[in-house]
């Protein structure tokens, strides 16, 4: 009987040690063996995608050219997406990672993908062009957020830090509830192991950092693989959303084009009014 008791105690102890080791491994910082960004090159741009449920996906993309388009950044990041072309506006983002899974119109009637850009680590600004027309240089960031059609679209979480120290990380934020406790999990990656640690912050509630392989190819982490696969499935059929269009806010003073147009329109309108009044006075 005592022998069975010792055996059971040994098994429980081994299990506890294994769990402790696993927990420590999960809490350990990201593996330095993996490379920092998707793509290759000296320049970096960040991608921040915030889904409708609040979960976010961030990517740091390297590129060798002086600049890349927003569309190229999305392609290099490995995030599955689909879009629709709107003439000179460019490509609008309709669906990202299978959100929405199905759509009939792009932009969607209820929700759409609003596109933002942050220059050199600055604040997010809604883009006035589609992602294919959007140009990103080293240090810039592209943001996508799935927002309701009505109301002012809120910006995604800040891109600061996505391409900085972390270097080597693709970040996946999960469980965006204010009360969500920090969570940890571990999954196997292409390079052998990948650790996922979660931290909570006011702006991005619970962010789990996933150290990944050189690219975000299948097999990197369970979460990433799942997302990409689901998105690929949706991309073949449909997609949703849009990216937005507004207000170029740069520059100060009077817009020369606006001034010319106002003068021309005023002159033509005034002339038309003069001719109309002259025509009324003219005896028939």
């Amino acid at each position, binding site marked *: 009987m005592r022998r069975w008791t010792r055996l059971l105690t040994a098994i429980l102890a081994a299990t506890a040690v294994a769990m402790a080791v696993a927990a420590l491994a999960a809490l350990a910082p990201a593996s330095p063996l993996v490379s920092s960004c998707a793509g290759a090159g000296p320049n970096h741009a960040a991608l921040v995608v915030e889904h409708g449920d609040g979960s976010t996906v961030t990517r740091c993309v390297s590129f060798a050219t002086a600049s890349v388009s927003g569309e190229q950044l999305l392609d290099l990041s490995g995030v599955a997406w689909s879009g629709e072309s*709107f003439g000179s506006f460019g490509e609008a983002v309709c669906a990202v990672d299978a959100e929405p899974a199905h759509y009939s119109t792009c932009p969607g*009637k209820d929700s*759409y993908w609003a596109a933002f850009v942050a220059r050199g680590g600055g604040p997010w600004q809604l883009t*006035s062009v589609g992602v294919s*027309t959007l140009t990103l240089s080293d240090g810039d960031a592209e943001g996508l957020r799935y927002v309701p059609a*009505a*109301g002012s679209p809120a910006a995604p979480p800040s891109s600061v830090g996505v391409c900085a120290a972390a270097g080597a990380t693709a970040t996946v934020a999960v469980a965006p509830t204010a009360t969500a406790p920090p969570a940890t999990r571990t999954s196997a990656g292409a390079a052998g192991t990948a650790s996922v640690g979660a931290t909570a912050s006011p702006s991005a509630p619970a962010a789990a950092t996933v150290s990944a392989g050189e690219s975000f190819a299948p097999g990197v982490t369970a979460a990433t693989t799942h997302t990409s696969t689901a998105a690929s499935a949706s991309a073949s059929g449909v997609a949703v959303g849009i990216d937005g269009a507004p207000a170029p806010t740069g520059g100060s003073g009077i817009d020369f084009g606006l001034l010319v147009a106002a003068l*021309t*329109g005023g002159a033509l309108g005034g002339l038309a009014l003069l001719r*109309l009044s002259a025509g009324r006075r003219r005896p028939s």
Partner: protein
Amino acid sequence: MSPRTWLIWSLAAVTVAVSTDNPVYRGLVALAALNVLLTWLPPGRRMKPLAVALVIAAALAALINVLASHTGADVLARLPSDWPLVGGALTLESLAFGSDVGLGLVAALLAVAPLSMVLEPHDVVDAMPGPLERTGIAVATSLNLVSGFGRTFTAVSDAQRMRGWRPRGIRSWSEVLVPVVLTAIEDSVLLAEAMEARGFGAARRTSYAATRWSRVDSAVVAAALGSAALFIGFRLAGVAIDWYPYPILYLPPINPALVAGCLALALPGFLPAERGR
């Protein structure tokens, strides 16, 4: 101006109006076309029916877009979401885009208005290239029928009123519409017989007085084609000339070169109209 010049000018102006979503360019094309129309409008022709049609078309376009599109940051009002199609938020952005669509309609209609309000139907036929001569005749005949239909309607309804007829519901209008339709058919048969008697289709159409091509025609055609080419070229070059107010309203981007292109369309409005009449 030569009828062919008018045709080219109208086609160029329509091309510019539909090649961009930018309301500034569309508005400038509309103003240019309005000036041209007011300059060359023959005495006795009234603008009011056209103005009413333009206002109705633009208002309908804006209304339909506001009710059907619920995207935009600035919500003006909300309709119950269970109402089919129109249910949801009514936004400032959808109103702006609907107005832009309406402005495009106004610009396009004003651009083609000289073909019916300045030119005579036979001028439109003359403006067509040789291979499209019969098409021109069909268009001219159609334009004639529209005004003829209106005149017949007025005459028949006046005659019926003198006989004591008063509109009392939809059914009572049959007493006016049936004679109007029968008269229109009779007029069509008479027109066909008259055209056949004059040898329609036997040979190329001849004119009593051939219109002369002048330097003014060359200048107007060059300006109109240049304007259309400018817009097409900018679009092909990938320069953003459109305006898309979703999700937040913003000022449309304006290129001074394209403003100049719109202004070039107003050239016939600065010419002495007597020269062309």
